[in-house]
């Protein structure tokens, strides 16, 4: 459906009732791939929620003190321990990559191939930096004796929640980085301008794919916002 027609439809809740009862496409003006990505992200939200809720339950019900994350995740600059420094840098790196992704989507729709491709590449490099720092963080904690079943800092449950939650998030980032590199290549090659058929599908490439990839990437950033707040800061 073209946006020109969309403007004539009622908006707000009236529009919602009309769309849902229109006996046609419910999500008007939304390409099917985008709907499917949103539904996948919704299911992913439930998975991450289950992890964070079980973390809440585990942390709230232990009678042993929870490790002080501010100290556990501090980095030494010279001789001075700076609390949560690495995590703060990781947060800023991920937000930066989210910003470049948002701009990539915009330039994609404007059919600015070069700009779009460079921004996707920048996003991929940001994601790679994030995964690299996470690997560093994991190895640092493992050296200090943190295990899923014990750790030297406090409640035993800390390790299992840490590895499970950040591991699952890191897996998402890694998968995103792989797709970002693939899409950077596709964009540089001009697949989305020529409507070249993809590797997994016989359908023609379209710049809407960049927006779908962007949705996934922003979601990864969104989950990190919650992990940062609840796991590292709380």
């Amino acid at each position, binding site marked *: 459906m073209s946006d020109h027609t969309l403007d004539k439809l009622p908006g707000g809740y009236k*529009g*919602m009732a009309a769309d849902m009862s229109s006996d046609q496409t419910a999500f008007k003006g939304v390409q099917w791939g985008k709907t499917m990505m949103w539904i996948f992200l919704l299911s992913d939200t439930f998975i991450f929620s289950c992890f964070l809720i079980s973390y809440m339950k585990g942390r709230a019900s232990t009678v042993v003190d929870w490790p002080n994350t501010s100290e556990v995740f501090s980095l030494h600059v010279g001789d001075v321990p700076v609390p949560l420094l690495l995590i703060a840098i990781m947060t800023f790196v991920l937000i930066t990559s989210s910003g470049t992704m948002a701009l990539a989507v915009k330039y994609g729709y404007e059919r600015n191939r070069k700009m779009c491709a460079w921004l996707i590449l920048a996003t991929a490099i940001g994601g790679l930096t994030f995964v690299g720092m996470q690997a560093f963080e994991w190895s640092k904690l493992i050296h200090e004796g943190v295990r899923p079943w014990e750790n030297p800092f406090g409640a035993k449950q800390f390790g299992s929640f840490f590895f499970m939650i950040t591991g699952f998030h890191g897996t998402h980032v890694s998968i995103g980085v792989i797709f970002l590199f693939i899409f950077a290549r596709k964009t540089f090659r001009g697949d989305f301008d020529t409507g070249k058929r993809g590797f997994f599908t016989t359908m023609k490439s379209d710049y809407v794919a960049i927006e779908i990839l962007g949705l996934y990437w922003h979601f990864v950033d969104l989950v990190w916002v919650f992990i940062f707040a609840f796991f590292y800061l709380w």
Partner: protein
Amino acid sequence: MDETQNKAQGSTHKIGIYLWIWGLLFVLSFCSYMVDWFAFQGLLRWSLIVIFMLLKAGLIMAFFMHLFWERYALVNVLLWPMTAIACFIVLMAAEAQYTVFTRAFYFFVGG
């Protein structure tokens, strides 16, 4: 194709919006880091963390993920399931209270 052309014209927004949101996300992240830096404790710490978190999440979803510009049919399908998560959080918080109570009781008082 007609569809692609319309998308190309209809879905772009001024670059200023993205840069503004980007800047705000940096400021909010910096603020939440400062909560830890100044080692605020108790209710002040928790409320600040949650406020900054919700603001960041809202900005990302509304503008970076374009939900602000989507039709209500999609927005409502995506946001209402969050109430189920909210219910789950309340249930498990109550459950945690009960678990810690029974643990404390049997550890310190005995069976």
